């Protein structure tokens, strides 16, 4: 097992290296000298050279690349901080939003999917599946604004936008987190409910389900213990792959709800053409995505002990 984890971790290195090379080259191909942009129109060439030196842009291109591999992303062009500090300060909101979304999504989608499978072909099944297609199609920001309109403006139950750090009070933190998390979870619920339904349906005809029923097992236990546990592998896989959707959704949701997280930072960095920040954020998100899917592979053994590494 440990050997497998190490081997898989090593196997992700080339992928991450390709991502790093790709992002690095992509952002270096752009026309225009960032130092000149930062210095402004009135700067003379010495000032520009000074800025170029401070940003490390006068170093050879290979050593610039190796700096990145060491995790040294340099200084943000726009925010006047090191990129590492910048990311650290934006981490909490994004992490809170993602975790809350995951909890809501899995908590709602899995029972919903099981229910749809159990009631296969009935109206309930059709409603769940219809919602699932709808969830894929309605853009995150339309969901977000509809929820704001209903719960914050018309009903006045929750704050409209903004974010409160956990340290400044848990109540306010939750109050401001709930709408964005629900917004973001819609597409995830659609995805997970669909795959849950399919994989539960796949196992419902197995012998052990019939056995469980024959021995008089309560139906709810048959569904959640015998069926769901055996159907878990594809569900967990999709939750892992869906992290790509989640990351994309974070960018949009944070913009809609003005949450100062990494997603908002990405958009601001693109608007300001702040290449060191763009580069670092993309590498970070990709690394998280790859590592989560590695973790998912390892979780398989929990659900299906037949899988051994």
């Amino acid at each position, binding site marked *: 097992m440990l050997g497998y984890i190490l081997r898989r971790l090593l196997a992700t290195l080339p992928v991450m290296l390709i991502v790093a090379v790709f992002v690095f080259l992509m952002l270096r191909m752009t026309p225009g000298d960032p130092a000149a942009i930062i210095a402004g129109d009135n700067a003379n060439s010495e000032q520009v050279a000074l800025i170029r030196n401070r940003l490390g842009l006068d170093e050879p291109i290979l050593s610039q690349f190796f700096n990145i591999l060491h995790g040294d992303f340099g200084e943000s062009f726009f925010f006047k901080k090191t990129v590492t500090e910048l990311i650290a300060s934006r981490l909490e909101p994004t992490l809170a939003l993602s975790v809350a979304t995951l909890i809501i999504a899995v908590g709602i989608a899995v029972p919903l999917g099981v229910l749809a499978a159990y009631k296969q072909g009935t109206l309930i099944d059709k409603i769940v599946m219809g919602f699932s297609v709808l969830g894929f199609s*309605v853009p995150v920001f339309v969901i977000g604004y509809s929820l704001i309109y209903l719960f914050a403006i018309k009903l006045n139950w929750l704050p409209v936008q903004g974010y409160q750090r956990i340290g400044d009070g848990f109540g306010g933190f939750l109050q401001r987190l709930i709408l964005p998390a629900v917004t973001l979870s819609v597409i995830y619920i659609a995805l997970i409910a669909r795959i849950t339904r399919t994989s539960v349906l796949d196992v419902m005809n197995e012998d052990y389900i019939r056995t469980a029923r024959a021995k008089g097992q309560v139906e709810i236990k048959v569904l959640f213990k015998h069926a769901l546990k055996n159907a878990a592998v594809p569900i967990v896989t999709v939750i892992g792959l869906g992290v790509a959707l989640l990351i*994309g959704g974070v960018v949009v949701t944070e913009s809609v709800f003005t949450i100062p997280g990494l997603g908002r930072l990405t958009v601001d960095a693109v608007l300001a053409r702040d290449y060191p920040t763009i580069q670092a954020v993309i590498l970070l998100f990709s690394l998280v995505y790859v590592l989560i899917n590695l973790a998912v592979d390892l979780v398989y053994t929990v659900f299906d002990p037949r899988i051994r590494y």
Partner: protein
Amino acid sequence: MSVEPALLAGETAAPPAKPRRRLARDGGIIFGATIILLMALMGITAPWLGTKNPSEINPAYRNRLPGIEQTVRNDDGTTRTFTYRMGTDSLGRDVYSRVIYGARISLFIGITVAFFSVAIGLFIGLIAGYMRWVDAIVMRLMDGLMAIPAILLAIALVSLFRTGLFSVIVAIIVPEVPRVVRLVRSIVLSVREEPYVEAAICAGTPTHLLLFRHVLPNTIPALIVQGTFIAASAILLEAILSFLGIGIPPETPTWGNIMAEGRGLFRIYPHNIFFPGICLALTVLAVNVLGDGLRDRLDPKLARRV
């Protein structure tokens, strides 16, 4: 949202239990195609649908609610009333006209991105699937590209070029191509073991003809399905980019741009978000439903291949 087509496809088609009636079976295809056709018709006939120039700024009529009327003086001195059916935005532009014209960009982007992603992915996938040494290099590159979440990759690519229709299209195509390559490659790998391919090789068919005549036709059903899902995700992605202010230049009427413009005053004038939002959601829904229908019809095994 960029919905990964592979994920959508992850759900297997309904089991062919009993033969259903044609309408029930193809309901999704009919529903999806009808809405898409209506949207296309709306975009094409936009100038005749009671619209005015969607970029025309009217400072006297800013931020008006839907249904407001304005008396316009014609060239010959007579007057007529113009109704702002969906109100106006903060520059006094007619939201109704902008929404109608917006259908053009969305559908254009959906079709263009789907076509080019499939064409490029098909080309690379055929070669990768058939030539071992190309395969090793290309697939590592594709793995790298797929490790970057689609929206982030598109956002980063957009930051490279000047904003515009062309750069948005390129930025959406790049993340989609690896998924097509994977699909095509997996089909090629299974098809190349087929006896008729071996027979063609024995008969001395040159490689390009072999790929074109014997291998390529096998990929078409799966590609039609995949292309439909790509179109849906491209329409969404363009709206997201425009909404974030990094897509198509703001004066162009696109659904994303109308919503981006309406963000600031959303609390008072939600119509700027809701009308384009409904059109966008309806269009993407139609394309997704069409894709589901086509998959059940053409390629029930797609799920297992990806």
